């Protein structure tokens, strides 16, 4: 993280654009946790950029006072990469839904993660397409009934965002629950503080279109990762992601490691090339002299 300090309270990050989520939507808890995390980290309004795709959850940047980029469905991660690479001094946080990041945007995730792009990605996982009114999403439980799957989805398996991001090479992977804004705020803070690509999966129920995976359903599902869990061991993190105890979900940090980041590696390339912002353009032209 790269932003400079200020003395802002959580509420000072809130914009005056009307929040358009349904009353009771899990995303309120996320917004809350994010504001708190921003305040705790003393992020500045001017050097923070919140990027999102399309979906209920992707509206989040409008409700914050920082810079923001409400992009297209599925394109938040490459947009955010462009922002970060153009100005590595910015703190760039990506927000999105399970459909946005793992269905239409699923082709970008592996590459942004494996390149260890210096971003934080916060996903609001409601196991449904909220904005388009209730289709199954890639994280929906197999067999879920949605408007396009009246007989239940035919998919024998769902996307496991934790396992996916771990396999992709994310250097920080965590999970939280929007019903626990305090713990969540902590996790988001740690994710933002992490150098490299960090991913936080947040179970954030859609009370309007998902009548199965509700707050009540998840309320007692969350357990902390075992105290002896080795956060630096990828295979054991994968094991925890794939095999949680029956009916339970782990919250906390599954994996954390350090690897050179994309920004660092690009800097090294520019060093190799003897980068000079003010290099005379004539030297470029003269390469083509005969």
């Amino acid at each position: 993280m790269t932003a400079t300090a200020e003395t802002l309270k959580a509420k000072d990050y809130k914009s005056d654009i009307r929040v358009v989520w349904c009353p009771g939507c899990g995303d309120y808890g996320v917004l809350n946790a994010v504001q708190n995390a921003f305040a705790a980290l003393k992020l500045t309004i001017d050097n923070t950029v919140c990027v999102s795709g399309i979906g209920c959850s992707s509206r989040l940047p409008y409700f914050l006072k920082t810079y923001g980029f409400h992009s297209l469905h599925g394109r938040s991660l490459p947009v955010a990469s462009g922002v970060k690479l153009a100005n590595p001094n910015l703190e760039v946080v990506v927000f999105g839904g399970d459909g946005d990041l793992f269905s239409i945007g699923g082709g970008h995730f592996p590459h942004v993660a494996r390149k260890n792009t210096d971003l934080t990605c916060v996903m609001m996982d409601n196991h449904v397409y909220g904005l388009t009114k209730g289709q199954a999403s890639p994280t929906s439980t197999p067999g879920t009934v949605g408007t396009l799957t009246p007989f239940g989805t035919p998919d024998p398996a769902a996307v496991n965002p934790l396992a996916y991001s771990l396999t992709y090479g994310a250097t920080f992977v965590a999970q939280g629950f929007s019903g626990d804004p305090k713990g969540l705020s902590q996790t988001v803070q740690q994710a933002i503080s992490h150098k490299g690509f960090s991913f936080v999966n947040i179970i954030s129920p859609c009370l309007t279109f998902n009548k199965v995976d509700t707050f009540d359903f998840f309320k007692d599902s969350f357990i902390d990762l075992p105290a002896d869990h080795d956060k630096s061991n990828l295979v054991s993190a994968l094991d925890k992601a794939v095999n949680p105890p029956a009916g339970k979900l782990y919250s906390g940090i599954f994996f954390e490691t350090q690897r050179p980041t994309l920004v660092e590696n690009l800097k090294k390339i520019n060093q190799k090339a003897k980068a000079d912002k003010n290099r005379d353009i004539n030297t470029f032209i003269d390469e083509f002299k005969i």
Partner: protein
Amino acid sequence: MSDLIIRIGGEGGEGIISAGDMVAEAACRSGLEVLTFKTFPAEIRGGYAMYQIRFSKDKILSEGTGFQVFCAFNQEALDKNKKELIPGTVLIYDFPGGDIEQEVKMDGVVTYPLPMSKIAKKDLDMYRAKNMVALGALSYMFDIAKEDLKELIRQKFGKKGQAVVDTNLKAIESGENYMKENYKKTDPYTMGLGNKTGKDVIIISGNEAAGLGAMIAGCNFLSAYPITPATEVANYMSSALPKRDGTLVQAEDEMASLAQVLGASYAGAKAMTSTSGPGLSLMQELLGYASMAELPCVIVDVQRGGPSTGLPTKHEQSDLFMAVHGGHGDASRIVLSAENVADAIDLAVDAFNLAEKYQIPVILLTDGSLGFRTESVARPDPKKYKIINRDRYKPNGSDKYLRYKLTENGISPMSQPGDPGGAYISTGLEHAESSAPSFTPEDHNRMLDKRFGKLKDVVDFYPAPEVQGEGQADVGVISWGSTLGTVREAVNMARKEGLKVKALHPKLVWPLQEKQILAFAATCKKILVPEVNKQGQFAEILRGKTGINPISYPIYGGLPFSPKQILEKIKEAM
């Protein structure tokens, strides 16, 4: 002789391209102007490859018509070019001992069999040197850059050691000697030295030119996905950008590349991507975003034969419809198209200037033959370019920043992350001046008027299209892109023949400079629009926007026009 076209044809991978590049560069050193033309097979290995070089003491406008000299490396090449081996042309071919098994006799064609394979294999013990044997023969026979060629070999291969230099020189000399010993020149073609004095020249390909122009314009970010025939734009930038502390990203696909460009532009970079038709198709949604969110960006589209995967290495100008009208909704954009290599430099600068000034996506159309061809061009003078940067938001402490503020000319000062008080949400939703989503009729009207109103300004701001020829004309030719050079040459030919012909050479193909087009059309009895695509795309757009009713002359065989083709059509139209 002030103008000579030599074509070399053979199997892809036989060193035809590298040999051609070398003679082009050497000729350029010897003071000649050069313009090359290459076709590749779409496969990696095998298939017919062709390299053609036009030499001249004067400025060259196009690939020209046919050739004077053809050098055949194999039977396939010979067969493909038989139709163009007309009386008066010269044929040098690999015989005996090569792929061509029979001696060639053609009425009126001067033939010089040259056992290049045999010489390379037997005398030099290096089959790969076949191309150099041919070069030596060509350079000797037509008196092209003989000394410069050897000097160039010494320089180029110097770092590979004296042995390599020697073999290549020996190959050149073997070709030379074979011709000297076996033939008495019976053809009239001989080039001689060009004018070296006072020339400040570079030799550069169209793809590199687009990159160099971007560097001149101050581009500091490029994200691209490889695609024929555009990859070389990014290739060039991949070594240039880091030297100026810029960033090059090889993206996972074309959507990622334009998305990164938009993110970078938002953050303040002068950002671009380069692609070809299939990539531009994939970028259509994001292109609409750039229009909606008013993000400056440049997209170079090096067109190839379409649709679909199509003819990846063939020449076509068939992405115009998409460039102008692609994508859903009413999305404003600017489309430029380059005539030649020098133009690719200038128009890349223009593209960035327009993108920055109008906060709009600008598509620069070139094409495969232009991208791959090299030309000798006057060394660009950096001082002649005016560089425009976006109008930046200046915090004034009191007013809330309105990103999409309605102004007289539709251009709203732009903040970038880091600017105090400048925070806003870049958005693809329709919005109010503040950037907050708004779907009222009023805002949609206002904002569409803003986004399209800018285009009205563009047509006045951008230099008027050049008119070639004066007075009243029987036929006025309007074309676009690399066809312009060919039209220029054809119109020169027509006027020399005393025909009343003019041409208009628009570089800004969208929005159209209607005033100038109509004024031009008013001086012509008929308007002819030659272009390389099936549908007559520019002709239809011209008719659709200006109401003038041109004769559409589309060709679509994967090759550019020859000046002769256009001249003939002009005569037919008269």
